[in-house]
């Protein structure tokens, strides 16, 4: 009997290029390059596949080797720590045909794992091997534009892998459910697919964690997942920022957060008061956040993204350095930003406000954005208090029922207004 506990990411890994999810263009480019080796050594002897984690870069190479019956020699970060280690398998690259008569392809995976001092010379050694390689060499990294790879890049054909669409991830999840004999609600799978943000590996892992051993998977089974795992890391990041002893320490913590800067900003803003309890420290920290926000404004207006670094300086180091008198607290939990809760709840509301704004704009010579902020509060008062005037305005502005209900906050009143309109 097959091991039921095998990781589904391995068990259901695509065996053939046809099964690989998304990235059709990138895969085609890669296939063409590998095929070109049959006509002699191409100009670029290495292909550099790059893109975010979990989207099928390695799987593509493995599937290709399988489809083309090539011998795949795979090395990952743990294998090529130093120049010497790389040279040791250099010999492999000197022949296209392998011992057994098939063709060979060499894969150097997880290139991001090469760290500065430990892998000294590693990148240089790889570059050397590529120069004289007699068989296709494939490099894989998340970020090909890391300055460390600059010389390497010029010797490679660069192939970008993008996050597959949620619909593609969904298709893959459905296939696995079929194979595992699980009846899953479309909603449930959609939720997992969306949450993965294109990371197929994490989506499959989530699916396994939730569905293994079950016959049915419902939306309720998955919806609680929420942002559970993300929060664990954000707590650490917040701790590192607020209690940092050096500016660098605080600034570096940003790289560890897997939320964007705006979101991290909200987390810091929410939690600063409970951790910097001394009034001077608090005022200093809030001042730093205020300056970070000033740079956000400047960035927005000028579209000069390099201002991001000052935003980070102030929101991390600025906050950390403000902590002078506050004692490190024993254990104060970090709280989810209230504003984010309010914002997400009111997202639909703001969309509706803006739609009303556009109606106002058609009549009142002002932007929809401004109208939705400046005129709307007055409309609300009128709609709550004066059916006759409200009906007149609703007609003049051509408001629909949803808008009228929103402005009156009262179905009966809305009904009365709609009635007097017809």
């Amino acid at each position, binding site marked *: 009997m097959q091991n039921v506990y095998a990781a589904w990411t391995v068990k259901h890994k695509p065996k053939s290029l046809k099964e690989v999810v998304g990235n059709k263009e990138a895969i085609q480019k890669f296939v063409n390059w590998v095929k070109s080796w049959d006509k002699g050594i191409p100009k670029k002897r290495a292909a550099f596949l790059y893109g975010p984690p979990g989207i099928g870069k390695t799987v593509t190479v493995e599937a290709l080797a399988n489809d083309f019956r090539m011998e795949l020699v795979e090395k990952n970060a743990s294998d090529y720590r130093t120049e010497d280690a790389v040279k040791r398998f250099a010999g492999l690259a000197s022949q296209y045909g392998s011992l057994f008569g098939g063709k060979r392809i060499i894969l150097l995976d997880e290139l991001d794992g090469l760290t500065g001092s430990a892998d000294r010379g590693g990148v240089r050694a790889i570059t050397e091997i590529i120069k004289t390689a007699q068989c296709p060499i494939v490099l894989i990294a998340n970020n090909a534009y890391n300055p460390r790879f600059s010389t390497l890049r010029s010797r490679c054909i660069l192939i970008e892998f993008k996050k597959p669409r949620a619909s593609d991830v969904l298709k893959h999840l459905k296939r696995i459910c079929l194979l595992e004999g699980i009846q899953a609600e479309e909603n449930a799978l959609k939720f997992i697919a969306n949450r993965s943000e294109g990371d197929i590996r994490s989506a499959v892992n989530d699916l396994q964690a939730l569905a293994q051993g079950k016959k049915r998977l419902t939306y309720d089974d998955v919806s609680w997942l929420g942002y559970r795992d993300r929060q664990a890391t954000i707590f650490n990041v917040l701790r590192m920022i607020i209690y940092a002893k050096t500016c660098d320490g605080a600034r570096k913590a940003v790289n560890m957060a897997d939320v964007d800067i705006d979101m991290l900003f909200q987390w810091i*803003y929410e939690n600063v008061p409970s951790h910097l309890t001394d009034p001077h420290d608090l005022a200093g920290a809030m001042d730093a956040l205020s300056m970070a926000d000033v740079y956000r404004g400047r960035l927005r207006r000028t579209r000069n993204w390099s201002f991001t670094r000052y935003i980070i300086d102030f929101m991390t180091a600025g906050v950390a350095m403000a902590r002078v008198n506050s004692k490190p607290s024993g254990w104060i939990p970090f709280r989810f930003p209230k504003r984010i809760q309010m914002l997400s709840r009111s997202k639909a509301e703001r969309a509706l406000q803006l739609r009303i704004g556009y109606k106002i704009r058609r009549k009142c010579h002002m932007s929809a*954005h401004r109208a939705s902020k*400046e005129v709307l509060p007055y409309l609300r008062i009128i709609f709550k208090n004066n059916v006759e005037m409200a009906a007149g305005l609703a007609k003049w502005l051509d408001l629909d029922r949803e808008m009228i209900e929103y402005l009156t906050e009262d179905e009966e009143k809305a009904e009365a207004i709609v009635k007097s309109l017809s």
Partner: protein
Amino acid sequence: MSFEMWAEKYRPKTLDDMVNQKEIVERLKSFVKSRNVPHCIFAGPPGTGKTTAALCLARDLYGDAYREHIMELNASDERGIDVVRETVKTFARVRSIGEVPFKLMILDEADNMTSDAQQALRRTMERFTETCRFILICNYSGKIIEPIQSRCAPFRFTFLPREEHDKHLKWIANQEKLDLKDDGLEAIFEVCAGDMRRAINTLQAAASLNKPVTAEVVYSIAGRANPADVRRLIETAMKGKFVEARKQLRDMIQKYGVAGSDIIRQIHTEIFKTDIPERWKIILADVVGEIDYRLVEGSDEEIQLSALIARLVETGHELRKAG
């Protein structure tokens, strides 16, 4: 009975109707007479007649069919460079038929245009001067890039003098058969700070209550930055309760839609009324002023105002320490 937004209903239609901004109106009339208009920047605080002046100018220039000769664009809604490249250019390049050989492009809230879009606009303005004149409307001309400023005739709009403000509102109240009390008028001026559009909107909202418009009515509808709320906010902060004060602030901004600039103006007023040593009042005025400035520069009103609240918390702490 017909209903419109009064701010539109009573918007002056021609330059002759415009009772305020006398000097500006005179200059605009001379443009109409000579049938020539330079590129213009109308700068000034909200509700002082900038958009109205542009529309009146257009009507006087082209007559009742003025809409065929002008285009109104709102940079807050369409602020990207693509709009300048496509919409503006397409409009600007085609010659107008009629007595006046050029069209008018009214770019409202132009200070919300990205600098990229402004750069693109600059070339468009130059290339199509023959066929199209631009009126840029903004609150702060400083947010318009220099090269555009230097190509435009500047017009600075100022707040209506108190008498004009009162006269206009009384006239509207009269037209609408409204009982506008003196203290109501006073309250409108205090709440709207001379912003005519807001003043008229406030008046209309007050009218919807079907009772005499008193100060109490005005404050209740402008339930917005109510002085009592602001006072309570300051007190809470001075007592050292930052989180609670922040919540009060959040309610004001999110629930009641009070503008940050509104709150800060009132905090400024209140500070000089509170019972703290005189020396501290001027220290706080500096803090308020700094945050007021950052409010314009920054992107998030709540963040800026909470920074101010934190300063108030700090001040309260210092004062208690000093006894």
